[in-house]
């Protein structure tokens, strides 16, 4: 076990951010996770933990919804409550979980992966993070204002979102809009920071084509944020003005155009799907080579296809509006542009399969989640192509088919990709190993749960069950019961994960610098990495993913000390368990 680094850096980097379980002997350190820290690693973990708390909250709302939908009648909760629940579920899962979680991963990993000591603008970074709990509180507070939270769905389409039955100025909808606008501001700050960091702070020798695929995907995703988010934020502000000051951008009674809002909304919110999924593609590209012991197949094509996705994602938004009274030429144009996105995406999928093929696989928890996420993503991609076909979309638009499709992307690929990333980088973040057995149990429950809840949504949608309904005709009962059971199982599946993380963080085995024998700058420094990451800025001499060849990645030692530790890592033991 290579614990030289641990001895030279006692305590300060081994802090547990969970307040109930402070690292023994280092009680002062967990507090920095509640402080205005400018260290990108602290901010990264702050993002991830905050987001995960909201993930559990949003999941709880979803389980109440599934409880309602286990019977055809609206009987468990009032219709208004159900409508509030699905609105807040969608909003929390996107703005409070997915985006902050991905920003957390990017924050933690990007500077380490490109050989930088921190982000380009550390203070801006901290401000962007601290906006998250602020708009989180605003959003949560909307449950307690008179009239309850927003009930207009996470799209907040006017005129429904402008109806304001309470008549109050401070109502669920206006708080919702303030929170979404703030979330946009926070994400724009994050995007400026990440793009600048990747442009300007790469270590010497790290040309664009020596950059890890994860950094490429984060870069491609954050460019979308910069282009698209202003549209959504502007849309939210205009809607807020309509709601509170009586302007008439979108209100048809006063001559506004409600369809215009749909353009503002989807101009960002469709590319947002790629903001979400691109970094997860990056996670897949990082994980498969490590656990298959092979280079990423077709690295250059894979990373360039990320940029292609960025470009194409900006010209597909109207496919959400095929049924909104869109003219025929527009339907056909956006049908073809949407289908075209499957080409760079397909390149990535095939490249991952080829990376795995013929390798020496180790089915660790990270690899299982990676493979599980890839297969659910493939399924979602295929239903996605079906949806892009305008004539077919007319039938399933706004039905459960769509709900099933995007949950396969977001819960299937993105959440499983997130778990893969956490298992993979957990030893780096904490200096500790997690328990493989619990990780595998977590995978089994998650994978079964996801398919049990979301697969039945496809036949439901084909049969014609609209989304966002609190009650439904009895013919839909069978598949809904199965989906609800899957939903409860998915809720249970988070328990082994939480148990694993908390106990491993405090008393897991010491991990050493590089327990997976992975190639990458982050694995050259101690676990957890010291403040400012690198004693000496690394000089990169090889492309990433040199598995199977003996080329060194860097020409100096970024730790500043000489160390030889490849033989003493734990991969052999883990492989034994995995097989």
């Amino acid at each position: 076990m290579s614990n030289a680094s641990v001895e030279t850096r006692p305590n300060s980097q081994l802090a547990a951010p969970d307040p109930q379980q402070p690292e023994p002997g280092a009680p002062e350190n967990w507090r920095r996770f509640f402080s205005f820290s400018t260290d990108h690693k602290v901010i990264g973990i702050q993002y991830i933990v905050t987001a995960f708390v909201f993930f559990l909250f949003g999941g709880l709302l979803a389980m109440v919804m599934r409880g309602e939908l286990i019977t055809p009648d609206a009987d468990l909760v009032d219709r208004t409550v159900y409508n509030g629940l699905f609105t807040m579920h969608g909003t929390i899962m996107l703005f409070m979980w997915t985006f902050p979680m991905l920003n957390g991963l990017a924050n933690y990993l990007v500077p380490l992966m490109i050989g930088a000591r921190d982000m380009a603008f550390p203070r801006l970074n901290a401000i962007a993070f601290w906006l998250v709990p602020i708009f989180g509180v605003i959003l949560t507070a909307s449950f307690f204002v008179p009239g309850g939270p927003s009930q207009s769905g996470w799209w907040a389409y006017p005129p429904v979102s402008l109806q304001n039955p309470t008549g109050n100025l401070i109502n669920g909808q206006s708080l919702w809009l303030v929170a979404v606008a703030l979330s946009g501001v926070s994400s724009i700050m994050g995007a400026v920071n990440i793009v600048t960091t990747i442009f300007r702070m790469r270590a010497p020798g790290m040309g664009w084509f020596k950059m890890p695929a994860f950094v490429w995907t984060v870069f491609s995703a954050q460019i979308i944020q910069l282009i698209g988010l202003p549209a959504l934020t502007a849309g939210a502000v205009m809607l807020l003005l309509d709601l509170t000051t009586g302007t008439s951008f979108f209100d048809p009674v006063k001559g506004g155009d409600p369809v215009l809002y749909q353009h503002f909304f989807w101009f960002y919110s469709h590319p947002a799907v790629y903001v979400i999924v691109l970094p997860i593609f990056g996670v897949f590209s990082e994980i498969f080579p490590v656990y298959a012991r092979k280079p990423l197949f077709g690295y250059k094509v894979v990373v360039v296809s990320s940029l292609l996705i960025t470009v194409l994602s900006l010209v597909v938004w109207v496919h959400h509006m095929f049924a909104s009274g869109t003219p025929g030429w527009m339907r056909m144009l956006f049908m073809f542009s949407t289908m075209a996105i499957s080409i760079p995406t397909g390149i990535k999928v095939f490249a991952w399969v080829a990376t795995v093929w013929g390798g020496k696989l180790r089915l660790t928890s990270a690899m299982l989640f990676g493979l599980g996420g890839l297969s659910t993503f493939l399924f979602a991609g295929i239903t996605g192509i079906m949806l892009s076909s305008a004539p077919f979309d007319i039938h399933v638009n706004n039905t459960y088919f769509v709900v099933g499709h995007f949950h396969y992307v977001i819960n299937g690929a993105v959440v499983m990709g997130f778990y893969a990333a956490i298992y993979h980088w957990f030893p780096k973040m904490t200096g500790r190993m997690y328990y493989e057995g619990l990780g595998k149990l977590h995978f089994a429950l998650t994978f079964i749960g996801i398919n049990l809840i979301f697969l039945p949504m496809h036949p439901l949608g084909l049969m014609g069950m609209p989304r966002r309904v609190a009650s439904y005709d009895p013919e839909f009962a069978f598949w809904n019961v199965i989906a609800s059971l899957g939903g409860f199982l998915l809720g249970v599946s988070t328990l082994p994960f939480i148990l694993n993380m908390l106990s491993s963080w405090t008393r897991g085995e010491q991990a050493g610098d590089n327990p997976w024998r992975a190639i990458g700058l982050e694995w050259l420094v101690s676990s957890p990495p010291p403040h400012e990451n690198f004693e000496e800025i690394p000089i990169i001499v090889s492309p990433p993913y040199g598995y199977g060849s003996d080329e060194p990645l860097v020409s100096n030692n970024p730790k500043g000390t000489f160390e030889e530790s490849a033989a003493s890592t734990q991969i052999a033991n883990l492989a034994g368990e995995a097989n």
Partner: protein
Amino acid sequence: MATNDQRTTDLNKVLNRRRIINLTGLAIANLLISLWMGQQAYSWLPPQASAESILIDKLFSFMTAVGTFIFNGVVGTLLYSVLFQRAAKYDPSDGPPIEGNVKLEIIWTGIPILLILWIGTVSYQTYDQMGILGSMTQKTMETVETVPAEPTQKVATSVEESATSAPIEVHSRQWAWEFRYPKEGVSSTELHLPVNQRAKFKLTSEDVIHGFFVPAFRVKQDIIPGKEIDFSFTPIREGRYRLRDSLYSGTYFAANQTDVVVESEAAYQKWLQTAAKTTPTAAANVAQTEFAQAEKTSVSLGWATVKPAPAPIVNYSNQPNTSQPTPQFEEEPHE
């Protein structure tokens, strides 16, 4: 089987004759499974009650077959790796350092492009045919009252003009559907249509955006307030089907449903005549009933809601019972 690992290292070595035969066999098996899945796809959809539905189902069946083929191919390959290409215990060595293969990468860029062109073309043709049937091209929007003028252009396409070709007015509101037959002076909360004639509609909304959706007809159209939208399709199968609001419209959205009855020309005319003689009364309305009930209870269990519009006053109204909604369609012997 685990010893097969080494054979897969070099693409050129891999493609020997035996392997090509094996791969061809697998591809044919996959093709057969995919074609079978494509046939199964029809049974996942509601009955084909409109001319449009036949085209859409064919398109869906085709896409299901293509999708199944790809899914099986990719997941099958992954599963083979997972089962047979695992690292041996205590084997610390790496796999073969293959960084890419230009030929392979060109193939798997080219094939998806061709597939997309194929699916896109089939979709386009379907769309075109649906346009001829009338359900797609009539996207003319007319400006009413407050909305600034937009250029409008009538596209008249007709397969079979109905004798009673005045469009049926569809009035949607929170939360009721009302259908008016202007020529006959009939209003109803249940939509009646003659079979095998193109049904034409003028869709309007009085408050928020609603969606006109009949799953058995595979048609859907959002109804934008302030606009009048022309819409048409051709029902081809007698029966009773469900019409649903498909675009979320607020509190009682889920209950904003009614029935469509497709019947013979004779039965349709008879229904119109009987309805025209009936005195208009307030129709049963789920939103109204539930809202009134909620107002009576002293403790509110819910959050704020918009007050539902009064129940429509119509000549004919469908079954009011909502706790036992009518089935989506009545089973009829299928020819």
